[in-house]
């Protein structure tokens, strides 16, 4: 059953896109900034996980948690150092700063460890299960489960906790939230922390699933995740999940049909089409801009 196999391939790829896209969408939702450094936080997560597993002999789950914590800290530092003072500047200034931060992270990593790739150690024994004639690796299943758990956790944080309530309030109207006694700065930092932690987790998962990591690995998945976020409707959390999974499946289908060289193009054609036909994304409501 070839198509089941392809579906599993697509959903695995898509869940990585979804985890990265969540960070994009949360940050955009709260400060209307496309954080282009997000793909590089994903890369840092992959490297932290790699060093934790290969050099410090940690197990997979502790390494994953360590990568998430350190990425959360890095995300907050980026926000405090680079973006906070630009909160009232033009959006283009913040966007350019984000690109600058992205390049800074990439080339700092290259400066300290060189540009050569690293091979992730095998942490999950790679046995296969046959389901309806498709070979599905245990690795892929564990990765899917972890992604799902993280997404459910995020839903819980956003909808059931106090900080989640604050995040929703700030994204709705930051000034009104401030008047209601919400600490807007801390809420924004928390958003960066959560988004970056998810990107860090995606980095570790990516490393385990695809083995090769290198300092510029965040660029393309970062852009694809951005497409996924726009596809689902930027600023909308369930939209990022659906957009990520959908993009993964679309890319796989394009390859499966024999157009593997068009796969990257397909992602960006989707971006163009969605911007022309439905700029608010699948889940977006057409809100009228206040003038």
């Amino acid at each position, binding site marked *: 059953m070839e198509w089941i196999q*392809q579906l599993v391939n697509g959903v695995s790829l898509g869940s990585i896109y979804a985890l990265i896209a969540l960070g994009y969408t949360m940050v955009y939702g709260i400060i209307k900034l496309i954080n282009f450094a997000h793909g590089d936080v994903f890369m840092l997560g992959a490297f932290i996980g790699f060093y934790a597993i290969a050099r410090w002999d940690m197990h997979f789950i502790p390494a994953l948690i360590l990568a998430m914590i350190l990425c959360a800290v890095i995300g907050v530092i980026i926000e405090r150092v680079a973006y906070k003072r630009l909160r009232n500047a033009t959006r283009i200034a913040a966007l350019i700063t984000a690109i600058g931060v992205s390049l800074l992270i990439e080339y700092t990593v290259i400066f300290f460890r060189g540009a050569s790739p690293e091979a992730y150690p095998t942490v999950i024994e790679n046995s296969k299960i046959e389901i309806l004639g498709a070979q599905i*690796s245990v690795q892929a299943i564990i990765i899917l489960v972890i992604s799902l758990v993280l997404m459910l956790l995020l839903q819980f944080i956003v909808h059931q906790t106090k900080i989640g309530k604050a995040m929703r309030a700030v994204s709705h109207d930051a000034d009104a939230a401030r008047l209601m006694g919400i600490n807007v700065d801390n809420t924004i930092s928390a958003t960066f922390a959560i988004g970056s932690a998810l990107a860090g987790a995606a980095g570790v998962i990516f490393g385990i699933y695809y083995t090769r990591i290198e300092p510029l690995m965040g660029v393309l998945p970062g852009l694809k995740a951005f497409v996924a976020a726009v596809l689902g409707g930027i600023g909308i959390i369930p939209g990022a999940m659906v957009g990520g999974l959908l993009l993964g499946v679309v890319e796989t*289908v394009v*390859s*499966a049909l024999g157009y*593997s*060289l068009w796969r990257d193009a397909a992602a960006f054609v989707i971006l163009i089409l969605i911007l022309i036909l439905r700029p608010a994304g699948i889940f977006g409501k057409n809100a009228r801009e206040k003038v």
Partner: protein
Amino acid sequence: MKHSKMKKFASIFLATSVLAGMLAGCGASEEGGSSSGGSGSSDGDTIKIGANLELSGGVASYGSSINDGAKLAIDEINKNGGINGKKIEYIAVDNKSDNAEAVTAGIRLAEQEKVVAMLGPATSGNATATVQTANQFKVPMVTASGTAETVTVDKDGKVNDYAFRTCFIDPFQGIVAANFATEELKAKNVAIYMDSTSDYAKGLAASFKKQIEENGGKVVKEEAYVTDDVDFKSTLTNIKSENPDFVFIPGYYEEVGLIVKQARELGIDAPLMGADGWDSPTLVELAGPDALNNTFITNHYSSGDPDPKIQDFVSAFEAEYSKQPNAFHALGYDTVYFLKDAIERAGDKVTGETVQKALAETKDLSLITGTFTVDKNHNPVKSATVLEFVDGNQEFKSKVNP
């Protein structure tokens, strides 16, 4: 062996501008008089041999391996009295794995250091970029591992007079792989999965396909990927559905490592085969030793070859560097002996021109990577070795003559 059109274009542009600048500067400078066709010579007590190699950057592992092999050969020659009583002076310049830097390094070796010959860049792309410099300054350049046809022959089929190589060319590896698949593995339905951004891989795939069809085999699936891809699963699933009994994967180790791993994960158990682009320890790290079982490569040489000449080289190398020599070490070593042989026959006046002539006339020269004769396109006619990966180690399988 890496090749990129844009880089090549950029390097040619840069090379022309650098040259223009130099020529313009000549008129004003006092020493500028001798610049036209400034070929090196060996009037002193030493013979200067340059090396224009990838000592840093993306393919640094190729360049530094060639450098190590070359240094070993030069030490041996100098210890045994040099060439015609003259010691070799070896000048290595780093081209940073970059086409434009390779051209600059070539100009520096020819113009400032006045070498009589140089070891050329390791990859086809960098070597091709440097050819023009070699022709212009009339200094022969020998690439140890640039396997693309276009290094020694330009687009119109004209031989580049001052470009030579020690390795065999790409189409030959494809033919060897096809013969190995049909004769030794009895493969009938084969699939090809190539790196469509690399001229090296495309050349190999084309010659493999032609030969396999001549041998009565059938290509059931042709797929392609691009450099830097990480997800090959959907395409591999496609290949799997055709049930090939052999898959040919011309490409470089960074992607091939992932392809092999993912292919085995999807349950493709057929033999997989590639060429010298697979030859790197990184391949074993990426794919894992288990997944690499039942895979084969064609290569220039094997340290497990029982030939006594090879075993002598292996022990000399191990004594110097305390590790096993790979194919690039052997090619670097051979390149120096290839030059030595030519310089000995170059006559009393050792210059770029006389060495070039002697190199082109090389016949039945016995070296580590095979006995070879230089043909009219400046390619050596020599044998290839087929290796099998067994638990992550390359083991000698067979030797194939052209």
